[in-house]
């Protein structure tokens, strides 16, 4: 449960909604096979666009085809000989995503040789640290140094220093676990707040513990009853019979053949149904 959430945060490029853009990217790769190589396993995003082109690309909210043709055109014009693999956000509706992709392009532009994903991550982090992310501000070039990064997407307008990022990650984990608990504990509704759900969970755990106590008391009573009434022969026979049955049941369970024993001895459980 915990591992999956951590992994999802460690994907190399969280700024891309990989799934919706993958189809468009692959479609686009089919259109231009010779100039673009998409490596699915390790996305090497290298862009060689000068800054001005980015403005022209993203200022006009053109259709996908136009932006793509713009990309190709510019990439062919670029002087770098290495294989241009573009990182593009083909869906340019969301402003925040657009801004992030823009940031990625700008941060990795001019970095022709290294294809480290960390660079783009630092780009995100730097951009987010700037806070507002206006295009004018994001035109600065920054030194890229590989450093420890937290792979979390920050929403627009939220504080983005490392403390609050860690806080947000923690809160996400806690919310996910609360949701799991919600499925387990009966009587938890999605509409309830977290505090109410915790109260329900506490009540449920207490009730289960009380049930265990009550059942152990019942077992005590049953066993003392049998011990007590061992004078009468009938009781003794029944007690011995039951004890033997219990032992045989245990042996059966140990061997794994509970089907036979279970059916015979647990027939009374049908009255309880699923717990």
């Amino acid at each position, binding site marked *: 449960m915990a591992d999956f959430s951590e992994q999802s945060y460690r994907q190399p490029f969280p700024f891309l909604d990989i799934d919706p853009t993958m189809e468009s990217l692959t479609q686009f790769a089919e259109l231009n096979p010779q100039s673009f190589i998409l490596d699915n396993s390790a996305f090497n995003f290298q862009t060689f666009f000068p800054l001005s082109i980015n403005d022209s690309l993203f200022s006009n909210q053109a259709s996908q085809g136009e932006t793509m043709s713009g990309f190709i055109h510019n990439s062919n014009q670029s002087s770098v000989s290495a294989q241009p693999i573009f990182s593009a956000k083909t869906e340019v509706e969301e402003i925040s995503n657009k801004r992030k992709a823009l940031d990625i392009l700008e941060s990795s532009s001019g970095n022709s040789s290294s294809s480290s994903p960390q660079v783009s991550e630092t780009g995100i982090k730097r951009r987010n640290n700037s806070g507002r992310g206006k295009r004018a501000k994001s035109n600065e070039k920054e030194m890229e140094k590989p450093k420890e990064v937290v792979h979390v997407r920050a929403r627009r307008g939220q504080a983005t220093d490392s403390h609050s990022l860690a806080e947000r990650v923690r809160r996400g*984990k806690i919310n996910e676990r609360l949701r799991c608990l919600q499925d*387990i504990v009966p009587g938890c509704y999605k509409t309830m707040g977290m505090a109410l759900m*915790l*109260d329900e969970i506490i009540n449920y755990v207490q009730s289960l513990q009380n049930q*265990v106590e009550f059942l152990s008391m019942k*077992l005590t009573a049953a066993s003392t009853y049998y011990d007590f009434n061992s004078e009468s022969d009938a009781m003794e026979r029944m007690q011995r019979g039951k004890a033997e049955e*219990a032992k045989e049941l245990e042996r059966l369970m140990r061997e794994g053949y509970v089907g036979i024993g*279970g059916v015979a001895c647990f027939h009374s459980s049908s009255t309880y149904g699923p717990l």
Partner: protein
Amino acid sequence: MNNPHHLNPTSLKSRFTTRFLRALTKIRAQKPISSSSPTEIFRRYRRIKAAADKSMAYSVRSRRIWSRAMLWKLRSRSYRRQDPCSGRRSGKTNQAIMKKSSNENTTTRREDGVGFVEEADELRQLVPGGETMNLCNLLDETAHYIKCLTTQVQVMKKIADFYSF
């Protein structure tokens, strides 16, 4: 239970059942109750309840924090009962170790910043070993603890039915 006729022999339920039944037969064989004094009965009740908890904790082994805490608690309690002097000594050193580990991992009284402090504290008291967990682990352990408790209740219910026809 989807299929009551087939039980996985390595499942939690079967592991707990075999252990608990074995402990029950041992308790019943140990001392047949001669008198019906409440203390005797209470003592047996305590023993049966401890057997249930211990069987459950043993079935989970040390994979979970709560099972480890419960096993440690049961063991220290039994040691203390057997030999008061040594029990006190070992109890103290063990408690010191526990406190040190708890201070290393988490601060026991910390404002999580999420706002569930009272409920979280109450939950910490319910789940064994909960004092040394932060909220994230606490919720995880609670989920597993609830699953084990429901198994325990199911099995004990069936056994009680079986005993009392």
